[in-house]
């Protein structure tokens, strides 16, 4: 297990590990709501799934319950999903960051690498605006789809 921060690259944290499991199974554990709640978060935490729309532009909302009773509301928007190689998402509830998860085959094992890039204060506003626009677009498309279904 390696967790590093590269200050020179700016606000980046990288974590990686090799798992003794085939890549399809590791992918399943990340992409299926019933699996991900089983392992997500530090020891002593539990996760309540609220919504997990696993597709680009889809939202994942969940609450992490800390061992001291504190609840942490989280919201993530999936940016990119390339089965079974890569997931990129934006953590849009504080703290803001962009994450990418890559799954690579190593013999009969799977290496998972998570890269988190934290936004500078200047970027926050811009990102928030972009997300607003993307979400708005999806809502509009959803409405259009519902409307077309009724026609």
């Amino acid at each position, binding site marked *: *297990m390696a*967790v590093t*921060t590269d*200050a*020179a*690259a*700016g*606000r980046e*944290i990288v*974590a990686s*590990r090799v*798992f*003794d*499991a085939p890549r399809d*199974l*590791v992918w*399943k*554990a990340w992409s299926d709501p019933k*699996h991900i709640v*089983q*392992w*997500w*978060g*530090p*020891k002593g935490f539990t996760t309540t799934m609220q919504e997990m729309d696993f597709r680009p532009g889809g939202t994942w909302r969940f609450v992490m319950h800390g061992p001291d009773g504190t609840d942490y509301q989280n919201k993530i928007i999936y940016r990119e999903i390339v089965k079974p190689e890569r997931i990129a998402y934006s953590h849009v509830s*504080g*703290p*803001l*960051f962009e994450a990418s998860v890559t799954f690579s085959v190593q013999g009969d094992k799977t290496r*998972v690498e*998570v890269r*988190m890039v*934290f*936004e*500078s*204060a200047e970027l926050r506003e811009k990102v928030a605006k972009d997300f607003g626009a993307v979400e708005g677009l999806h809502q509009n498309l959803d409405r259009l789809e519902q409307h077309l279904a009724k026609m």
Partner: protein
Amino acid sequence: MVNDRLTTTLAALADPTRRAILARLCTGETTVTELAKPFDMSLPAISKHLKVLEHAGLIARGREAQWRPCRLEASPLKEVAEWVEHYRRFWEDSFDRLDEYLTQLKSKERKHGRHHRRRRRT
């Protein structure tokens, strides 16, 4: 978790000369002239780096006009360490739990697989 002070600290640390200056200051306070010695840089260039470090609260400078020693201020570094520690713990624990969970999933799949084969044979 990432506040503006942390952003300033990380920006200040994102330069090899400034990191070298901080490393030098770990051994004790010293003058700008002394600090500049190991670098192939003009005093004004070094002063510029010192201003960035001072602005980030990573160093403090003496008040005396002639002798303005620089010294390390460690508290912003502690913040960086805490920030990394938070995520280190998150991923280390999550990966531990994922590892255990994958073991469970594998044994379930194996059982399921055997069951499947048996059924196919009959």
